[in-house]
């Protein structure tokens, strides 16, 4: 087989690697469904075929080896590979057909948005309590009493009552929770709880209590201070 076949195969391999391993790691991206990757690879393939057959010479250089390989004429040691390909192709087609008709055995995918947009009236609120050691201390006391059973005395989401809840209580020492959020966002989440989430946050699943029925606003603002201080994080600001 000529080297002219090697290039397309390598190219397809590279495109696959990019789609499979690099794209999902781009911030804000997600793993691509296999059907989409398949589609992209098909597009790449037709691109290569069209390109390779543009001129008469490259056409022959491209098709010649494929044709020789498939008919098995004068390919010597590649005969084994040829049989493997001729055997694998039907098997793979069969497997693809089977997996596309088989009903899914997995529960519905949980595409829960963890940080949906807060209602307008909460954006831009600032903490009205001045940040004194006293206020922080008080906040930590409230946290220990009301929040630590779920979110943990160490702010790690591993409180003694956390285990039965799905999704699990947030881990505040993780940089992807409160460190990414503004104080006003926390105020909304603590006041309205899991049931305050919009539909993409799947409010029916969240065990986060609706604290407005039990705690005055001032306590909530103090808890927010105590929470950041205890978890060694600081709120996100736009300055």
């Amino acid at each position, binding site marked *: 087989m000529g080297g002219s076949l090697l290039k397309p*195969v390598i190219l*397809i391999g590279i495109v696959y690697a990019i789609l*499979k391993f690099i794209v999902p790691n781009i911030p804000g991206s997600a793993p691509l469904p296999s059907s989409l990757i*398949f589609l992209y690879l098909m597009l790449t393939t037709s691109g290569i075929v069209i390109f390779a057959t543009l001129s008469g010479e490259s056409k022959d250089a*491209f098709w010649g080896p494929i*044709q020789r390989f498939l008919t098995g004429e004068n390919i010597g040691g590649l005969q084994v590979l040829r049989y493997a390909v001729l055997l694998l192709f039907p098997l793979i087609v069969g497997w693809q057909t089977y997996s596309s008709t088989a009903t899914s055995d997995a*529960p519905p995918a949980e595409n829960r948005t963890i940080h949906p947009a807060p209602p307008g009236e909460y954006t831009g609120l600032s903490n009205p309590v001045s940040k004194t050691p006293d206020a922080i201390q008080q906040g930590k006391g409230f946290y220990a009493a009301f929040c630590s059973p779920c979110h943990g005395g160490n702010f790690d989401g591993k409180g003694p009552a956390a285990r039965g809840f799905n999704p699990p209580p947030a881990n505040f020492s993780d940089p992807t929770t409160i460190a990414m959020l503004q104080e006003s966002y926390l105020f909304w989440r603590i006041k309205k709880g899991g049931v305050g989430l919009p539909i993409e946050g799947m*409010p*029916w699943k969240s065990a986060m209590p609706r604290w407005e029925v039990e705690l005055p606003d001032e306590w909530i603002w103090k808890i927010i201070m105590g929470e950041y201080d205890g978890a060694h994080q600081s709120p996100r600001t736009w300055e």
Partner: protein
Amino acid sequence: MTRGMQQMKWGCAIAGVGIVCVLAGTTIGFAQESVAVRAPMVKGTLPADDPSSAVWGSATPATFPMSPQVHWQNRIQEATVKDLTVRALHDGTNVAILLEYADPTEDPDDSAAIEFMVGDKKAHFAHGQPMAQVEGGPVNIWFWKNKDGKGVDMNAKGFGTLKVQGHQDVKAKGVYANGTWKVVFTRPLATEHPEEDTQIATGGFINIAFAVWDGKKDASGELKEKGSQKAVSSWWYFRAEAPPDYSGYYYALLAVGLALGFQFVLIRKLKKGHSA
């Protein structure tokens, strides 16, 4: 080179590179870590009155962690039951769900419950309490208490709205042995009251949640766990498995045959084209 010959070459190339693509497609797995109770279909009668029946062996157990109920008032900071093992079976008409959990003492007030959503609307796991931005539906609760020795079919839509239904479709039986409760709930998969009862269609996943009360009394004669003071879970999944369907294998076999035929015809034509 003839026209037909050229077309053949096209086909052959696409077949070749297609292999690469298909291979690439199949290597992508679909790993998922959600926990669900799966009820296989069994022939013969369901072991509704017998939590120890060997028939339960055909159901795969699912174990769910339980939390003391600290989500709303009145809370409890520690509950007796930490884990709950669930098995389920159905026979095409009725479903049987077996809850199994450790409880050091048998008490008259020991109780357990299963919760479902009703209809198409989502319901919060805590008694279907109202949600601010989503219109919720009611929950259907199947309740069993040791001293009553029966299942009770209930509904709630918000705290303090729990009520016993006018029509009772749920049966329950508990057996206590060796520090373990085994409680079986049974009900028809479908009922005539879709506004109040969860309807279980085979093959589809529905939501399920659990609660358990240790009915032990403390020194002053107060129940240790009662009302909102219990062990709870939030939503997990439940599915009554559809009868086995082999059509996927037939389609796959057909596809293999077609692919083989395609290869055969292609190579034959290529060879002919070559020698011509």
